[in-house]
């Protein structure tokens, strides 16, 4: 490797400069006082349904529901979307206005921005409060790891995956999650309402 060709004094100088640069970056981050378990420590760019590059923390400052899905999923994923809509229907209009939703595709190859936009249109989803995003393929396991979501791509192009809906508070801390699909999880709904107060 090139690094080893450099002589020792140069190497020391370079590593010192590198270390100082990294430390100043860390300090800049500290100013935002992100809690240590905030998912927003994942500083990743994703593409949304409009083809815009956004940060995963687009909705920082507001409670957010997050889930992972794929748009071509035949049965459960549409139910995942409708489960979130059922939950929302249990909220007052004021509460709903404050809540944000981000659904993250585990199939970025097939879920293009156009496909995601089509899915949102098909489900009459309010784009002011809701984003469908596609991460880089290389970031998927990291995102799934943060949310405790398991997924496996099957030979036919479908996926097995955990259907988990996660509630984030304003700082990106995971307050609650549910794996109940097709009906309202009363405890989860209560957690959502509390987070909106």
């Amino acid at each position: 490797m090139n690094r080893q060709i450099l002589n020792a004094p140069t190497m020391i100088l370079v590593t010192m400069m590198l270390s100082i640069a990294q430390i100043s970056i860390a300090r800049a981050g500290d100013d935002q006082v992100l809690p240590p378990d905030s998912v927003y420590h994942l500083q990743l760019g994703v593409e949304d349904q409009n083809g815009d590059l956004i940060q995963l923390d687009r909705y920082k400052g507001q409670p957010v529901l997050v889930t992972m899905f794929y748009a071509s999923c035949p049965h459960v994923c549409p139910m995942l979307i409708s489960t979130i809509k059922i939950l929302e229907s249990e909220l007052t209009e004021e509460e709903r206005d404050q809540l944000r939703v981000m659904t993250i595709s585990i199939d970025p190859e097939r879920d293009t921005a156009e496909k995601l936009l089509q899915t949102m249109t098909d489900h009459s989803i309010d784009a002011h409060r809701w984003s469908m995003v596609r991460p880089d393929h290389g970031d998927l396991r990291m995102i799934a790891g943060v949310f405790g979501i398991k997924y496996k791509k099957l030979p036919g192009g479908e996926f097995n995956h955990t259907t988990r809906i996660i509630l984030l508070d304003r700082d990106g801390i995971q307050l609650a999650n549910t794996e109940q699909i097709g009906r309202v999880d009363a405890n989860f709904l209560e957690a959502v309402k509390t987070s909106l107060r």
Partner: protein
Amino acid sequence: MHLIIALLALALLSAGDIRSSFANEFVPIPTGEFRSVIPEEEDDNLVAVVAFEIQETPVTNAEFLRFVLHNPQWQRGNAVALFVDDQYLSTWANPISLGPESDQKQPVTQVSWFAANAYCGWQEARLPTWYEWEYVAAANEELADARALPEWRQSILSWYSQSGSDGIGEVRRGPKNHYRNYDIHGLVWEWVDDFSAFLVSADNREQGGADELQFCGAGAITMEQKENYAVLMRVAMLSALEARYTTRNLGFRCARDTGYQQ
């Protein structure tokens, strides 16, 4: 204070012959097919593996120390709770030195998936997939796939029955396998990139109570070749982990695609 010590340590490391003390070469693994314990399809457990390269040994304490010196955000105390649990690198004397409990040549353990993933990224590599790891783990010293040999199975099982009783040994003490890898079995368990692809837990543990709606898509994974108990134990262990967990027996090694240019 830590900054000064870190810089001094870096200077020492840089001035020494880092090539010899940190060499953990990537060895080539050829393209092939094998029968996995986790079949992709219900009636076909033949899995294709495309040629790749994987490190000879698990990543050692010395190698991981070098990583955290260059990447302070991964030092114990700096790494955020989103990415590591509270036992992260807990066997080290302090965030930037190993101490008597952790030998340089021991595999690093108490590392989370996120930390292992970051280390491999820093090496311009990645974690191996489960199928890649399982493919390599099928080899003994002579054969690429020794799994049919009862004595081979027995030797692996005997390690599982004794591991954890006394400390973790140094790398490269055991024999080289067919591909020139050391310590695939016998020292530590290893993270794989797609450990979160095992959906076996919710299906097989809750007998009869599997909530099919938990999973989107086709049928759940079934585990084949129950006689390969030792490898199935790895699957069971990995499937129970979360990406921020660390354990005393869990380390990792990196892989990369064939054709990598240095």
